């Protein structure tokens, strides 16, 4: 449900959790990101930072500058001044990622898991396609690459985005690996539950894997201007689109990444209008698949 009034609760001496509801619903994330933006703009004294998640916002404050009670009052006043979620217009960059679906590296990773941990593990793309009533892995690629994805939050590992498809016709779900994998290639594209992601670096993981992008989303050596001095590429509220490419195109992109000449495909002029978005999805037949 979406709560009539958000729930405020303390996290020790310097955090407040603002909970907007207890279901997976983009509306709740829009509220959290709207409040995060309003906090930034208001420049509230004592605000250190905030971090939106799917259905809540974590606020970090400095208790020397503002009390818990005063921060809650400030948050309530910002929430009421934001009004309806429909009125939110959020800054949102659009990133396009060249992606090789059913690539040999995630295949090798899945094969290794089958050999060492679970010989019965079905090849991830076939498993996810079957579970979601799709014809085959090729339709999975059409469905998965058919939608823009919303960066609802970042975490688990620095820079790892938790993505939700914005097009309901691309909504697919699948369980995570149990037990998890001990390794995953950097740039692997996959999903678990209803969230999908890109692995910033090689880490253990539990998502079903079905592709790989050569384009880094983690840049500690500051090689690419697209990171704007940051180490991780994304911010909450960004959007991502996967562009299926051939092995040749993948290799060409990888060469450019190696020599530093790769141009990131980023569109920065748009705002995300919650009202326009809702009007659009209300017109769709959500049972359709690409």
């Amino acid at each position, binding site marked *: 449900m979406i709560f009539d009034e958000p729930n405020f609760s303390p996290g020790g*001496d310097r955090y407040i*959790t603002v909970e907007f509801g*207890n*279901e997976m619903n983009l509306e709740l994330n829009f509220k959290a990101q709207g409040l995060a933006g309003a906090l930034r703009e208001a420049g509230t004294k004592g605000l250190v930072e*905030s971090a939106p998640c799917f259905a809540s916002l974590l606020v970090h404050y400095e208790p020397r500058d503002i009390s818990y009670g005063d921060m809650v009052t400030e948050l309530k006043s910002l929430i009421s001044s934001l009004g309806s979620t429909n009125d939110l217009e959020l800054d949102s960059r659009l990133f396009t990622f060249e992606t090789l679906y059913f690539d040999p590296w995630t295949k090798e990773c899945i094969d290794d898991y089958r050999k060492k941990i679970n010989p019965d593990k079905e090849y991830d793309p076939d498993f996810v396609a079957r579970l979601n009533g799709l014809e085959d892995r090729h339709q999975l690629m059409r469905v998965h690459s058919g939608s823009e994805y919303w960066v609802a939050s970042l975490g688990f590992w*620095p820079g790892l985005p938790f993505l939700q498809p914005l097009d309901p016709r691309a909504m697919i779900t699948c369980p995570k690996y149990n037990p998890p994998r001990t390794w995953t290639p950097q740039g692997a594209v996959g999903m678990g539950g209803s969230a999908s992601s890109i692995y910033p670096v090689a880490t253990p993981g539990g998502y079903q894997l079905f592709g790989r992008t050569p384009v880094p989303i983690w840049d500690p050596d500051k090689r690419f201007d697209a990171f704007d001095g940051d180490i991780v590429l994304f911010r909450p509220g960004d959007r991502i689109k996967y562009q299926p490419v051939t092995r040749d195109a993948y290799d060409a992109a990888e060469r450019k990444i190696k020599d530093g000449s790769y141009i990131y495909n980023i569109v920065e002029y748009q705002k995300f209008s919650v009202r326009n978005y809702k009007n659009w999805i209300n017109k769709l037949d959500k049972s359709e698949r690409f």
Partner: protein
Amino acid sequence: MLEIIKPGLETSIQDFPGRIGYWDQGFPPSGPMDNWSFRLGNILVSNDAGAPGLEAQFMGPTIKFQQDSVIALTGADMMSKLDGESIANWQSIAVKAGQTLVMGPAIKGSRGYLAVSGGIDAPSWLGSASTFHKASVGGLDGSAIQAGQVLPVKAGSGKAGRRVKDACQPQFSSDKKWQIEAVAGPNDDWIDEAGHAQFLATEWKLEARSDRTGYRLDGPDWTFTEKATDKPPENGVFPSNIIDQGYPLGAINLCGQKPIILVNDGPSMGGFICPYTVPSAAFWKLGQIKPNEFLCFKKISVEEAQALRRTLDDMCNETSIES
């Protein structure tokens, strides 16, 4: 310049308060686990309280000084010796070029700190020199210090013979039991009355599989309210599962039935409830407790936790020093 002869056990460059402002990108603050001892060390050698220094864990490093300097050791007693002579914690000491400092095993507490006048000259990664080695970020090159490395030091104005007043030094437990303050929330209403009573009555043992990411506690199972069992399915299958949420630093995170205190290098979000949060003023104790010792939690209010923090900050000050 500090020449590293032996690195010790994941000895790392840290500064205070660390990498703040990147929680929404999943970056933890890192920084010294016991920031009380860390800050006093810097003040002893006339640095800013947060200047980059070394955090040694359980087994300290061996370091050769390549220039005359003033240093201070604080935190855990690591039986430190300068050219074979024992030297005491909590005071500033002059060292000569060519002298060797050996920080040994931690015999009281877990983490020892070395402050050098001027501070270690390490690059700033997102505003902080703190090492977060799991992601290869911070320090000189993203990792803990290594044998053969030479750490540059900035020019400083420290003087020998300064000492932290006895009353201003943290007191480490001598009976393996640590009283740790905890504030209820953010998800305290998922635990029933019996669960709360049990949490506060239990002596929780710190498991060996604990590090700067999380402190795993061994103890009884938790019991829950209806909120944990009667919830939409997307919250997950375990009673302690919740739709992924941001985690406060210090959260006592209930992973299945296993409480894990999320500390300086911990995750920013995840799908488990956090019934209690350890406030910032109690972090120094987490930095000094050893595996297989016990944590007893004392519930305090938000306001009490904030008052403790003010008291601690006031102690990390020139007024705590005598000459």
